[in-house]
């Protein structure tokens, strides 16, 4: 236990630096991935075949393949096509793909949850398809999808730990390198684990709370 404290104090700053990278990676993937997910949520049911096939491809591969495969594809694979990205960029690209794919399905689910009467109402008011999407369906659909998107964000934050395998200097990677130089694997991984939990456990509670609050108004 003493050991754990010493380790936490000595390597805390390095681990916190790693945590910052993990959080940055999470945020970047969400900021880029969510809008793409919104577009894909329309793409997978679009009438335009090219748009639909492209969306279905990205959504199915993004959800069907493990995030680890996408990560390694970007980092070890792309150089074969003469595209060499930094570790951070390839991790970001892979996790953005995952985010876009999962959020597309979550958002589509949310929009299907918008009561039919709302859509009929907007038709009855003579709104154009575009206006009813913009003012009626998308805002309400996003609200319904919000708790599950928050739940996904927690999983995404945890998935950034996989980026250690392509040498992104995030929390897991820092913990591993400290571990392999000090041989204090157990305490350092416990401290790292607690740091992950310190973010994801409250975030999970937040998503449960959001679900309760938002479902009140439906």
């Amino acid at each position: 236990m003493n050991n754990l404290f010493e380790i936490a104090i000595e390597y805390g700053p390095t681990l916190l630096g790693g945590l910052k990278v993990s959080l940055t990676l999470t945020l970047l993937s969400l900021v880029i991935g969510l809008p793409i997910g919104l577009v894909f949520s329309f793409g997978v049911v679009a009438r335009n075949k090219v748009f639909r096939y492209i969306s279905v491809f990205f959504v199915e591969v993004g959800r069907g393949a493990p995030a680890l495969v996408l990560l390694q594809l970007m980092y070890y694979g792309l150089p074969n096509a003469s595209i060499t990205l930094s570790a951070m960029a390839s991790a970001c690209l892979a996790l953005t793909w995952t985010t876009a794919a999962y959020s597309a399905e979550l958002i589509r689910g949310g929009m299907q949850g918008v009561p039919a009467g709302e859509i009929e109402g907007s038709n009855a008011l003579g709104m154009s398809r575009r206006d009813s999407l913009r003012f009626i369906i998308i805002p309400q659909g996003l609200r319904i999808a919000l708790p599950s998107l928050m739940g996904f964000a927690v999983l995404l934050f945890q998935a950034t730990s996989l980026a250690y395998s392509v040498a992104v200097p995030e929390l897991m990677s820092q913990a591993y390198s400290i571990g392999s130089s000090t041989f204090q694997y157990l305490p350092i991984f416990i401290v790292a684990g607690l740091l992950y939990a310190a973010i994801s456990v409250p975030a999970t509670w937040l998503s449960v709370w959001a679900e309760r609050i938002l479902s009140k108004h439906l």
Partner: protein
Amino acid sequence: MDMLKVVMMGLPMTIVVTVLALMIGSVIALPIVAGLRSKNKLIWLLSRGLVDILRGVPPVVWLFILYYGITIGAVKLSALQAGIIGLGVVAAAYLAEIFRGAISSIPKGQWEASSALGFRQATVWTRIVGPQTARSVIPAYTTFAIGLLKDSSIASTIGVSEIVFMSNQYARQSGEGIMVFFVAAAVYIVLSVPLGLLSRRLDIKMRKAVAR
């Protein structure tokens, strides 16, 4: 075709890790569910904390703790053991939540009716609540199983020679990284599609059995 052969060499390990972790998880989930439903505050708090910690720490950290961190005397877990146990215990936490949700979705009237009819607890669980829970749990359970199939790839980080591990080695040796990882992705997709279909069919069949 050499590439596909190498990727497929990892398939047995992927299946072993997934199936065993799912089995371990399903069994350990049961006492945790009991704890989550317990009226004893202390037991409830402990189970709640256990589930939150297990789910709050990324699986790769659990695997590293088990594989690099734990030596009991001179005994050290093998990569495969650490992978299966780690993923199994994390699965237990997720499955406990899934089971708990399914049990709490059983209408209250079912409980009231069974106690009105004077059924024993054992009978209530085996004949009334159990079967209905099993039915409503199927979609979430298979979704989780498919997720676990993909999560089993994490075992490659501690050196279990499953699909991703084999693909990675092939990519490094041959330099055909794009193709081999797409092949690996395709194998995962091909594995999960039938599972998803099976679950949907089971769900529809069981829904018909209890037309409301």
